């Protein structure tokens, strides 16, 4: 399937051409991110293509928070980079058989994924963001996760990041980590 490319300034490129009009028709396209792509690039993309903000009611608020960040450092030293990845989880023994698929945005520290909900979004902006492999968890056994190459669509990226960052409404003076 034809991929679209997103550059560090948040522009979407299709066949090498910068998209200037509405991009809703590209929501289902697989994406490739520039090596320099950061979380800030993601929000720049929302500014270039405002219709993408309609995907989640949280995005407008996050943009307001980030644009008013003042002198806050955009790169926390507690994580090295950000990774966006997909998980397929099979449940069913004991209990009803169930398969769930979800996307996550995590911080990476020493090759380990770190939960981001205790970080302020302002402090994550300048971290590079990469697309990770698909994690396959069978019957809840997180010790034995299979990893596969996969692709991500533009919709998955926007919806997934919006969901994860919707947990980051911590007051600035509250910086508790677990």
């Amino acid at each position, binding site marked *: 399937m034809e991929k679209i490319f997103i550059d560090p300034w948040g522009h979407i490129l299709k066949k090498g051409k910068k998209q200037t009009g509405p991009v809703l028709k590209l929501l289902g396209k697989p994406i490739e991110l520039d090596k320099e792509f950061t979380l800030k690039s993601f929000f720049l993309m929302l500014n270039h293509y405002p219709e993408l903000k309609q995907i989640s009611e949280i995005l407008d608020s996050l943009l307001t*928070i980030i644009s008013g960040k003042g002198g806050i450092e955009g790169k926390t030293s507690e994580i090295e980079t950000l990774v966006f990845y997909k*998980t397929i989880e099979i449940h069913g023994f004991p209990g009803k058989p169930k398969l769930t698929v979800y996307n996550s945005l995590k911080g990476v520290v020493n090759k380990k994924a770190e939960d981001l909900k205790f970080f302020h979004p302002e402090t994550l902006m300048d971290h590079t963001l990469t697309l990770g492999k698909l994690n396959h968890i069978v019957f809840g056994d997180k010790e034995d996760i299979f990893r596969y190459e996969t692709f991500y669509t533009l919709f998955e990226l926007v919806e997934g990041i919006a*969901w994860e960052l919707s947990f980051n*409404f911590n*007051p*600035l003076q509250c910086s508790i980590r677990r």
Partner: protein
Amino acid sequence: MQYKEVIMFKKILFATTASPACDAAAKIAFELAEKYKSELVLYHVFGVPSHGGGFSVTDYVTGEEDSVGSEYIEFVKDEMKTTYETLIKKHGTPRFETLSGVPSTEILRFARKEGVDLIIMGAHTRQDETGSARFRGIVGTTMQKVAQKARCPVLIISRPCETCFWYFNKIIFGTDFSKASLAAFQFAYKMAEFIGCKLYLFHALDMGTSQAGITPGQKSIEERIKAAKKKIESEYVSRMKDFDNYEITIWEGTPYVELLKFARETSGDLIVMAHHTKEIDPDEALLGSTVEQVVLRSACPVASVNRDDKL
């Protein structure tokens, strides 16, 4: 700060799975009980009994099945004492109670029977990662059922907090002007007056429910804001006697998003709101109600109040 010689909560029930998922809630339960000189009851309900009278549980630590007899109950009580050893040393020994049954039903039954003034719970029974589908749908959980039906306020703790409750000084009351919101207001006001802290009266104009899909214009929004402010004054401010440490704020947008933003901006310590008793349509269950969305994401504790029986 001097507290009035009135007991705010005579009896606090901390409903716990006694697993790490409840650690943040445990800390606040112990601190609150000490602060308000309340009796603290740690209550743990084993899972649902099976058909035919047989009953076994799966221990969350070992993963092994065990039959529930008096020996097992004593074992669990001992485990709970060990789990909360540090908190017990710091704040005193609570009462331990365990029972088998459907957790939400038994918690509600126990609270009613014992005349509990406040129930404290963790928002989740598991430490799922936020991306998980389980995390996305909290409807149907014990917390949701208890918050919907409890006659007393339910304090839901989603995240660990070192500073929030012990010295909290900003209470945010979120209202949608429902009947249940009046009970939530009474709780928020009582707390604010008791502590002598600031009370924010907050309402979000739900722009997602504009009539016939027509987006309201600026004039119409301003009129609605004015009307909402007037309503807050007549429904709530008029009941506050000479208490004047309050502020009215009306924002427009999606209610749960605006409330979270407001809590962040004001560094709120406690959000108080109503959890409507209406059963949620299973088709809409994944979305949940405003209070559930707030509970899921809030950095500070959320008190869900539906009735004024215990206020």
